[in-house]
């Protein structure tokens, strides 16, 4: 008898004894499923993997090598710990600049900028649409003046910056490049990441300005421009985070994100770029939710799917084009307003999953983020959580310790298989842009969100402190950050002064070039770069795009 048959027989024998056992102590009367409702086995053994045709070298291989299941670096966190990058932004540029400096002083290694709702939607602080929103969910940036203040005293050749903005991303990027230019930083020293993933806006986050197709053209403009002029800038951070937070399952998050990535690759190829010229600068951003194994499997499957698609479908030759480098953020949606200190534990578990999944960068949420923007103290606990995992837990010493686990490899295969099935469906629809126009990913996510909410109502899924183990709580016991309405007034005042002090002639000339460029369909990075330096405001530029392309409207279906 060879060893495979030995395992098989031993397992059958064991199962007989198990069912004897279970007569006395039956399994708890629940469905054993992942958070995304996949049933999981009690136990996995080598014969499970054998039945799936598992091949170590083909499916897993070695870290830093195709298909990167085990991670994108050969020595992973022994060489360099993941980047601890806490998302921050609130009130004015000046206040956010102070939070940045605090985080850098506490050992954070990269910046991550959150913009307020008006900025994300392409409105200046003085627009009637901005009423009550200025500086609330992020920092207000209406012009280059704000951008300079935001990064004042921070050397942009030493720090990498991530900017979470999408619909007006091209404008914010040109402002950032203008600040770097003023600091005298050489173009190849400018490092960081622009989120710039407009497709997931239509799918999930819903911060859009113009219709899908011209909006994707703007993304492609920045891919083309930065691949030529800013070789170390990550032009798009293809994001599953918002898709997951909107209610998608882990598989949907993975599939829709990869399908978005494929759409950007297709568009850049249509411009005549070569895949290896831009693909190495595409990066990713995933959610890390509560289900520990499912999340680790998702990260492992993501790297394998992307590597295979880039090599096989697009014939990319540069291994950097095959690598899925990713940022991760713990799941905001998993945090509870009830018993908020419990959130510290949730974040720690999620962070651990992200790290064991091999993320390259991580944001840990603060315990108070379901109530308001985080306080300095809450942010510090979140950062310390990462530092404890990195320096005390020992998990950073070993590469992909779950690699080879019968259960984990089998789960990774399953997540990959189900995601590929979605990607096939989307390909058949004509790719993600067409799928979005049909409302396909939007409807799939809404269905999953409703299904999960129903499961919470019936208590099939548990949220501790919310639908189980509730406690009578006195008034809230933690402090929260409050944004003063004065921020709005000050921002408006700054705009009034800016519009008075800038050169009207230079501004008008630069705006004319942007308008003509938008009509002619040329790459808008150059004209916008000149316009922001002439102190054109964010909204002035977005209004130009609105005038040329119209505004996007979504049918209010549910």
């Amino acid at each position, binding site marked *: 008898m060879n060893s495979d048959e030995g395992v098989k027989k031993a397992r059958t024998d064991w199962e007989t004894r198990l069912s004897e056992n279970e007569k006395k102590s039956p399994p708890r009367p629940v469905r054993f499923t992942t958070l995304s409702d996949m049933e999981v086995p009690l136990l996995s053994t080598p014969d499970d993997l054998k039945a799936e045709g598992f091949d170590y070298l083909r499916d897993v291989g070695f870290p830093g090598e195709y298909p990167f299941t085990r991670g994108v670096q050969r020595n992973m966190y022994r060489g360099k710990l993941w980047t601890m990058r806490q998302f921050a932004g609130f009130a004015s540029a000046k206040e956010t600049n102070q939070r940045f400096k605090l985080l850098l002083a506490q050992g954070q290694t990269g910046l991550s900028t959150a913009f307020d*709702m008006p900025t994300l939607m392409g409105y200046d602080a003085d627009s009637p*649409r901005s*009423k009550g929103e200025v500086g*609330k969910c992020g920092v207000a940036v209406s012009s280059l003046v704000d951008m300079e203040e935001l990064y004042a005293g921070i050397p942009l050749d030493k720090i990498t910056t991530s900017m979470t903005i999408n619909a007006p991303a091209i404008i914010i990027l040109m402002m950032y490049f203008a600040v770097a230019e003023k600091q005298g930083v050489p173009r190849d020293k400018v490092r960081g990441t622009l989120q710039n993933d407009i497709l997931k*806006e239509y799918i999930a986050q819903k911060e859009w300005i113009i219709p899908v197709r011209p909006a994707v053209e703007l993304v492609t403009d920045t891919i083309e421009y930065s691949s030529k002029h800013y070789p170390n800038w990550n032009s798009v951070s293809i994001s599953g985070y918002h898709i997951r937070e909107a209610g998608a399952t882990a598989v949907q998050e993975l599939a829709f994100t990869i399908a978005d990535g494929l759409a950007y690759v297709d568009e850049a190829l249509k411009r005549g770029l070569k895949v290896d010229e831009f693909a190495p600068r595409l990066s990713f951003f995933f959610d890390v939710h509560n289900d520990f194994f499912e999340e680790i499997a998702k990260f492992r499957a993501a790297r394998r799917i992307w590597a295979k698609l880039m090599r096989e479908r697009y014939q990319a030759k540069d291994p950097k084009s095959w690598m899925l480098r990713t940022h991760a953020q713990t799941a905001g949606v998993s945090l509870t*307003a009830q018993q908020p200190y419990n959130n510290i534990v949730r974040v720690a578990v999620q962070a651990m999953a992200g790290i064991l999944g091999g993320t390259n960068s991580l944001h840990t949420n603060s315990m108070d983020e379901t109530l308001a923007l985080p306080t300095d103290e809450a942010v510090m606990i979140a950062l310390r959580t990462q530092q404890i995992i990195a320096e005390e837990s020992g998990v950073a010493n070993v590469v992909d310790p779950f690699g080879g686990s019968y259960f984990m490899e089998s789960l990774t295969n399953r997540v990959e298989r189900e995601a590929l099935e979605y990607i096939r469906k989307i390909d058949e629809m004509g790719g993600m842009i067409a799928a979005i126009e049909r409302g396909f990913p939007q409807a799939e996510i809404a269905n999953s969100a*409703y299904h999960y909410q129903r499961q919470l*109502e019936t208590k099939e899924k548990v949220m501790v402190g919310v639908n189980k183990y509730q406690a009578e709580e006195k008034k*809230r016991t933690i402090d929260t950050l409050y944004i003063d309405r004065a921020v709005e007034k000050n921002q408006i005042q700054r705009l009034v002064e800016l519009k008075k002090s800038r050169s009207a002639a230079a501004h008008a000339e630069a705006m004319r070039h942007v308008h003509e460029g938008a009509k002619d369909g040329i790459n808008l990075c150059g004209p916008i770069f000149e316009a922001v330096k002439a102190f054109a405001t964010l909204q002035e530029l977005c209004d130009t795009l609105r005038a040329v392309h119209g505004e996007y409207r979504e049918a209010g279906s*549910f």
Partner: protein
Amino acid sequence: MSATETKTTAKAAGKVRVLVGKPGLDGHDRGAKVIARALRDAGFEVIYTGLHQTPEMIINAAVDEDVHVIGLSILSGAHNALVPDVIAGVKKAGLTDALFLVGGIIPDEDIPLLKKAGVHMVFTPGATLTAVVDYIHQNAPKRA
């Protein structure tokens, strides 16, 4: 069936009409859509405004649909600025008995302010669909 026919049938059947609105700029519509669907499943007639609505847009929709209940979902922190405008506008337009609900991330200290502005109930994260449905059953205005 056209939209007008739906409305007439619902009105004839004496259904409670609920407007689910998303004022302001935030795009977090998971909660609004889940609530809208749950209310529809519970037998209410639901009108969902879609995203990024100004107070004026919501007021007009509420009046056009002659709704009994207006539920506003906000997760951006702009509730103190936007909710009072909606309520004042709806009342001014003649829907004086409408029930006003707010859902989203609303700090405790803002709840008294919202109630003073005319909000009947605020549902914060963790509120169950059943709680929202029951509240509307018990408190929606009865109209002849």
